[in-house]
């Protein structure tokens, strides 16, 4: 009796210890790991001694292992590996004791082992049958058996909170004692039972489970449909339809060959649920399910309808690469059929810029998108010229990005990836500050680095903000630098003032026009006339074609009285080429109305105009040159690029542009080849090539009707003659 009670107590204690053992920490501490390692090392020594001639010498070592690991076990810090080592130590000690005839001590070790792992078994293949029998006899006195079944099966069985197995299972060895058995399955109410297990006895539990939730089943055509239940993704259909559902599928209009297997969503609470079935390029199906009973509901068979649209993309110029959601789709102009409805990112890229827009396509919609290509401006961040500036640099950068992103209409504003920029700058051993004027950086290096960054970032210009050295950090200097150029333009903003940004935006968004509307009528202001007399009509011009003559006086245009030439010019400037302007003209004969259809004149960028942001102008001009190669517009743009280069004193770059412009520009009155030759002479002169400059001037002088500024400007020839001779 006493022995039985003792066993019970041990059992209870062991059960308690097992319950404690359930709470081993996930990651053992360093101290525990050291102890465990030491124990493992000792086990190796003990095993060597056990297998040696003096087996009993292993007992001392095994005692040491037991002491260390039981200590951890008491603290609740014994990891699973430690349990295995302890179990092995107990086994070896038990066997060692048995082999030297100390059966009681052997029994103690075996009892400790069984309490540690009730299902532990010794194999007669490896251990002496006598020892195995002895071990089993000890075990028999300690363990009983428990079998649990449930309906439905597959429930989780825990014993005093510790997982045992899934139903249904054959009897398992369990230390004798009292237990609370819990049987749980999702969607069913958890059942608990108390059981008392005696040594050698078997307890069997049949536990019927009461269902508390419903299960919904879905079959879709096609497969791969996400099923969202009450706003959360519950499952995705997959597989192929079982034959038994083929008939039902056909009845619902599904093609069994394309339908998915049945997908279950279990554990659904009773009541109403919102279900959404989603698949890319298909219409979303929404429905409400009312689950009134806790049961398996019949499968819902759903055929998903395709949701496609088409997208037509055009750009000026054509031939820009199309990327739809990052995937290459050809070049413009292009009709894209079978585009999934929904949100897409459209990117149209050219060497001189790109167009980016997010579109939302409706089912069966045909959307035509004009994609105006804009140069891209990479924001390189903020550099500070003082410690105070360094402290606020990050905040200023954030403010600038917020105020400039999506606000510049003529450029794509792109914050540049810091790592890419750093890598390129480090390769040439320069910092961002080196790109600024006055840094003393070799211009060729700046050109090289900006070209590299432009290629890597696919941009055409850069913006770098500088926080100047001032006590109160309120302004930032924004330096705008076109790729391939060497000197930036500077514009200051008060970075916390909205009006300051508006001024910056209005300046940057000015687009350099290569052409202006043109009449070819040169009028002058005098005190002698009401109106403006015509001094000259350019040959072949719209004014000449309208029959206007020098000496006639224009006193009204489009119904507005004209008293000064500036008024007439302003009216013309507000129109576009091919527009008409109605003039009222007084001449030697009676007054008459004359309609003039406007032409266009190329316009030179002024060489030094403080109102112009030349780097932005260069970006616009490059767009023209790269976007319309071989056209007159590109040739005139190139001429203006040369002027911009001269503005910065970069006569070498100007020279390169002018050589090309000279070849591309037409020979005719107005801005033409002669114009380029004149500037070529100027550039060569500045570069120190006097003879070549004189040759260029002479060639310009031979272009009799070439002009400067615009088609109405001063003649090139007389200027070129003088410069050739000087």
């Amino acid at each position, binding site marked *: 009796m006493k022995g039985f009670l003792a066993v019970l107590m041990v059992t209870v204690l062991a059960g308690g210890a097992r319950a404690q053992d359930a709470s081993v920490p996930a990651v053992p501490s360093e101290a525990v790991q050291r102890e465990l390692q030491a124990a493992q090392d000792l086990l190796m020594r003990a095993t060597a001694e056990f297998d040696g001639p003096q087996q009993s010498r292993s007992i001392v070592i095994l005692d040491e292992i037991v002491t260390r690991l039981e200590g951890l076990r008491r603290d609740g810090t014994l990891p699973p590996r430690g349990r295995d080592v302890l179990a092995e130590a107990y086994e070896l000690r038990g066997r060692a004791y048995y082999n030297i005839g100390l059966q009681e001590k052997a029994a103690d070790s075996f009892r400790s082992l069984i309490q540690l792992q009730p299902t532990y078994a010794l194999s007669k293949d490896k251990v002496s049958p006598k020892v195995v029998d002895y071990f089993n006899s000890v075990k028999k006195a300690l363990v009983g058996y428990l079998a649990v079944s449930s309906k439905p099966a597959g429930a989780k069985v825990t014993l005093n909170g510790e997982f045992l197995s899934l139903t249904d299972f054959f009897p398992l060895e369990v230390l004798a004692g009292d237990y609370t058995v819990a049987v749980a399955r999702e969607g069913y109410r958890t059942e608990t039972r108390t059981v008392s297990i005696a040594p050698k006895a078997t307890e069997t539990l049949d536990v019927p489970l009461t269902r508390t939730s419903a299960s919904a089943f879905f079959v879709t055509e096609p497969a791969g449909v996400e099923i969202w239940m009450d706003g959360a993704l519950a499952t995705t259909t997959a597989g192929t339809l079982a034959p038994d559902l083929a008939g039902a599928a056909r009845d619902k209009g599904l093609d069994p060959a394309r339908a998915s297997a049945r997908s279950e969503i279990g554990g659904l609470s009773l009541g109403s649920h919102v279900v959404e079935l989603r698949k890319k390029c298909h219409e979303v199906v929404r429905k409400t399910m009312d689950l009134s009973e806790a049961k398996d509901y019949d499968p819902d068979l759903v055929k998903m309808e395709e949701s496609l649209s088409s997208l037509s993309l055009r750009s000026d110029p054509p031939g820009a690469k199309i990327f739809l959601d990052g995937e290459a789709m050809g070049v413009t102009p292009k009709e894209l059929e079978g585009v999934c409805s929904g949100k897409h990112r459209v990117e149209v890229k050219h060497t001189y810029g790109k167009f980016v827009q997010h579109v939302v396509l409706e089912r069966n919609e045909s959307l035509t998108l004009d994609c105006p290509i804009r140069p891209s401006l990479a924001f390189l961040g903020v550099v500070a010229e003082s410690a105070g500036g360094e402290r606020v640099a990050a905040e200023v950068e954030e403010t600038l990005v917020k105020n400039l992103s999506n606000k510049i209409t003529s450029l794509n504003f792109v914050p540049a990836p810091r790592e890419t920029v750093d890598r390129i700058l480090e390769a040439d051993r320069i910092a961002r500050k080196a790109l600024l004027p006055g840094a003393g950086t070799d211009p060729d290096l700046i050109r090289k680095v900006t070209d590299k960054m432009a290629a890597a970032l696919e941009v055409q210009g850069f913006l770098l903000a500088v926080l100047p050295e001032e006590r109160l950090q309120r302004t930032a200097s924004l330096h705008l630098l076109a790729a391939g150029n060497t000197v930036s333009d500077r514009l200051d903003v008060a970075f916390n003032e909205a009006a300051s940004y508006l001024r910056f935006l209005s300046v940057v968004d000015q687009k350099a026009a290569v052409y202006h509307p043109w009449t070819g009528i040169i009028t002058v*202001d005098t005190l*002698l006339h009401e109106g403006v007399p015509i*001094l000259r009509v350019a040959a072949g011009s719209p004014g000449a074609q309208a029959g206007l003559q020098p000496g006639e006086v224009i006193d009204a245009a489009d119904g507005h009285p004209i008293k000064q030439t500036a008024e007439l010019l302003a009216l013309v400037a507000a129109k576009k080429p091919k527009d008409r302007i109605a003039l009222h003209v007084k001449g030697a004969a009676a007054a008459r109305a004359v309609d003039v259809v406007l032409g266009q004149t190329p316009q030179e960028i002024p060489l*030094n105009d403080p109102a112009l942001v030349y780097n932005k102008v260069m970006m616009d001009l490059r767009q023209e040159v790269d976007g319309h190669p071989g056209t007159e517009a590109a040739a005139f743009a190139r001429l203006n690029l040369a002027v911009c280069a001269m503005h910065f004193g970069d006569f070498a770059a100007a020279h390169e542009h002018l050589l090309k412009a000279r070849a591309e520009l037409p020979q005719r009155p107005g801005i033409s080849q002669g114009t380029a030759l004149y500037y070529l002479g100027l550039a060569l002169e500045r570069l120190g090539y006097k003879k070549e400059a004189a040759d260029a001037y002479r060639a310009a002088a031979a272009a009799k009707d070439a002009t400067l500024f615009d088609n109405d400007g001063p003649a090139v020839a007389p200027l070129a003659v003088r410069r050739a001779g000087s």
Partner: protein
Amino acid sequence: MRRVLALAASLVLGGGLVRAQSTADEQARGLLEDGRAYRRDGKLKQALDNFNTIVTGFPNTEYVDDALLEIGRYQMEVEGNADKAREAFELVTKRYPQSDGAPGAYYYLGLLTLDRARSAAELDDALAQFTRVQRLYPRSEWVARALYGASLTHRKAGRLPEAVEAARRVALEYPSSEAAPAAQFQIGQALALLGEPRPAMEEFQRIRSRFPASEWAPKALDRITALYRLYGGGKPVFALDPAFNAGAGDVLKDVRAILMTPARTLWIASDKVKSVVPVGPDGKMGASLSGADLQSLSLTPAGDLVVAARLAVRIGPRDVRSYSVPTDKPGVTEPLEKIESAVVTPGGLTLIADDKRKRVCRFDGKGVFQGPFPDTRERQGVRLAIDGEGDVTVLEREQRTVQVYDEAGKPLRSVAPRGAGWELKKPVDVAVDAFRNIYVADEEGFVYLFSPQGQLMATISGELRKPRALTVDPAGALLVYDEKHEKVLRYR
């Protein structure tokens, strides 16, 4: 330890010196900025004090060259002391040749040289100063002004094509510089003098299109008007302005001379009222200048009124002088008592036509006789006029000739007394417009317009009965005092 302490001390001191230098620079900069503000506000003495303080008190700062430039400008523009101005500018070029102010100093030295230049060599010197700016400081903001200065030099030397080219470079390469509108005006003016009136009109119009707010825009309008009147149609057109009405009563009696200023004030020298009376653009008469026996009116290059009376010449509002010439007796001079006409040249000479000695006499700025002009030949009944280029037009009434000389007396052009279908019978007055066209009033009832080469361009008669005096306004309109009508007639 001692070495460490010494090093620490030197670092502290060095830092202190750096800080002290920064403070001096800041102070000098403040003085310079304030000085420039004073100058803009017209407080010239205060401005000069500031600039002098920088030079004497902060000689090691980077603003000394700027201060010296300002001092030079003050001497040049306010005091009119060319020597002191030159001294200041030369200090900049010699002591601070690498400073920002050095090209400015060369520019101003060029202007000083140009102002005094009379000979070809002196003009070349001026040109050299301007060229130095372009050559040594090609990126400087002064290059545009230096090119403009070169243009002025070429024009003064009579090299009009070169003047056009230099001015064109300013307009083309530095269209936003301060010198650009003035340079554009130069282009127009030079082309007009070169006999290219239509291109000249286009160039003047460019000022109005490109620089509408500049002071040159209204001047350009005047030039275009004048040119268009002369060359816009097939021939010059002068139409009587019936609405014009200047002066009244006795002011319009016994008028000896009339003169229209650039500000469009018409001065009427009436011997009846013994005054020179100004009539403003609004037609109102202003405060008159008294004078007996008035003879002629003209303007100095600086725009001051020159009133010649029989015994004296008034130059400006206060300077009234009598002039004396040497006699045959050494040391003995004789006053001029029969002055007919007087003009002041750009070189500062006063030319006075003396009816008694039948000569035109030359006097320097101090009124000292320099000799006859242009030569010793007797000339009687002389009217003098001076044009924008500094050439002197001499009408001899008795000889009925018109001759044009440069300031040195070298003959340049002439108008014959007669030609096909015309003849100067009783020429009484002469005027010259901005383009060197010559207007001669003939008492027989005509005004003749001659080109600079002496070719008759137009004859104005019609309402005229007895022209007595004439003048040309800034826009080229002709004003004629007719003695019979006792009226100033305007032909626009």
